[in-house]
């Protein structure tokens, strides 16, 4: 059996999405910037896609900018806003649990002299909006808080944070990459000034994303060149992928409620059974305000990557917050931010469900997980198999 439980890493392109893209590779291939009919036909498709995406987000078409993905969107939003600011000193606020595309960009900005406040989260992984309010300074240019976390699925109080930012006249960006599939977003109601998306996280193609930029917000450009995207993002307009992204977003908005019900049911069943049936298993993050597709658990006395690789031997794809998976020395900064001790952070596994995940797949995964945990505890110097107990020395 093949079970893909790594939908937060990337998703399969939807067949409908692929079909929508296909004509734009070999037939309607013109450059949308060209004036002739080949170009105009492509431009028309791009315009329609932009309008569709805008309407789903409650934005104007002219506020949607296409990028190569959320990493670029996040880079552009943060660097663009900070560098466009005329403040002598510059400060920004983000959370301690952001994706590397935000974190690493913040570290780069710090090198450039920007001060960054990283707001802590509670043990459920949630940012307290009051902590953000308290962190605001005279020279705060930007607040960037993700809509939902990619590792343990905590959904953040974005509307409240947006309100605070608006009241204080500070730009508010949110990385909505993981949230968009399950959480309806309206940029006006939520006072969002900038928002990043990547199509491949919601069954669209890889290599295309958006940055929503509220009209009136000025960002320095990240990528200079031709006049595409209202002169704000240069590079030949990517008709097929843009069409694909719009179709994927349309499907995701259309089926959101049904998919959410389906996934959250499976998620709860999964968590309940594992907590019951696997000793020394722990849920990372809270059960409320959790993405319907996210299960993140730690399994005491064994290491995450070896759990991942053992599940892989049985055809099950998951990811892990262990340092060993990422090639870094520290385990996931997100799991640590929950207050989980390092040993258990090294033991964390993310099971990210998809809209097509079945109960059968989940049952198979639970049974395989139990075997896996037993196998690895049998190898672990920290676990006493006879007694069925373990301890970190």
């Amino acid at each position, binding site marked *: 059996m093949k079970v893909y439980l790594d939908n937060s890493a990337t998703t399969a392109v939807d067949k409908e999405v692929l079909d929508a893209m296909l004509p734009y590779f070999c037939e309607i291939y013109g450059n949308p910037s060209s004036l002739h009919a080949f170009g105009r036909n492509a431009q028309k498709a791009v315009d329609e896609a932009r309008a569709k995406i805008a309407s789903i987000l409650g934005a104007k078409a002219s506020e949607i900018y296409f990028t190569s993905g959320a990493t670029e969107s996040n880079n552009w939003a943060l660097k663009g806003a900070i560098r466009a600011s005329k403040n002598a000193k510059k400060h920004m606020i983000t959370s301690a649990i952001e994706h590397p595309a935000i974190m690493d960009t913040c570290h780069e900005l710090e090198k450039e002299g920007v001060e960054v406040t990283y707001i802590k989260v509670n043990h459920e992984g949630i940012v307290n909006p009051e902590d953000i309010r308290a962190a605001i300074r005279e020279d705060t240019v930007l607040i960037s808080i993700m809509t939902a976390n990619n590792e343990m699925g905590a959904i953040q109080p974005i509307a409240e944070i947006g309100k605070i930012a608006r009241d204080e006249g500070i730009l508010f960006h949110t990385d909505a990459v993981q949230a968009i599939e399950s959480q309806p977003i309206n940029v006006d109601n939520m006072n969002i000034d900038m928002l990043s998306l990547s199509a491949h996280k919601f069954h669209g193609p890889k290599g295309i994303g958006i940055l929503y930029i509220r009209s009136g917000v000025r960002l320095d450009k990240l990528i200079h060149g031709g006049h595409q995207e209202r002169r704000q993002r240069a590079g030949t307009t990517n008709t097929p992928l843009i069409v694909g992204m719009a179709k994927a977003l349309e499907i995701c908005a259309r089926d959101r409620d049904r998919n959410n019900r389906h996934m959250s049911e499976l998620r709860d069943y999964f968590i309940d059974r594992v907590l019951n049936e696997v000793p020394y298993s722990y849920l990372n993050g809270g059960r409320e305000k959790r993405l319907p597709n996210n299960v993140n658990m730690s399994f005491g*006395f*064994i*290491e995450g*990557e*070896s759990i991942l*690789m053992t599940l892989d*031997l049985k055809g099950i794809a998951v990811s892990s917050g*262990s*340092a*060993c*998976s990422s*090639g*870094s*020395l520290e*385990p996931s900064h997100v799991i640590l931010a929950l207050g989980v*001790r*390092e*040993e258990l952070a*090294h033991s964390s596994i993310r099971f990210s469900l998809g809209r097509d995940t079945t109960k059968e797949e989940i049952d198979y995964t639970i049974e395989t997980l139990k075997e896996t945990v037993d196998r690895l505890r*049998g*190898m*672990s*110097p*920290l676990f006493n198999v006879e007694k069925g107990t373990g301890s*970190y*020395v």
Partner: protein
Amino acid sequence: MYNDKVLDIFANPKNVGEIKDADGVGTVGNASCGDIMQVYLKIDREKGIITDAKFKTFGCAAAIASSSVATEMVKGKTIEEALKIRNADVVETLEGLPPQKIHCSVLAEEAIAEAIKDYQKKVSGK
């Protein structure tokens, strides 16, 4: 990331377990870094030959595969020969490890050395 050899050894590691009456035990690494490797050696005191080796490891696939390879390598070797085993030898047997996983092979080298040290301490009467 991993080659097939590593995956294969990880899937079917040899020498997993403890030796209750081991002549030398070496433990390296720590849980908060994500790796603990424990090597047990049975040594023929007369001949100075390693007759059996087992391991218990908390760690990633590379750590487990390295443990398997290293314990397999030392069996039948004299102590002197075993001490000459370098992490590069482990990597070679594994047909390569990703750069960030090389440290797992180093841990294996060190665990063997620690186990031998433990044995030597015991023998020299401590």
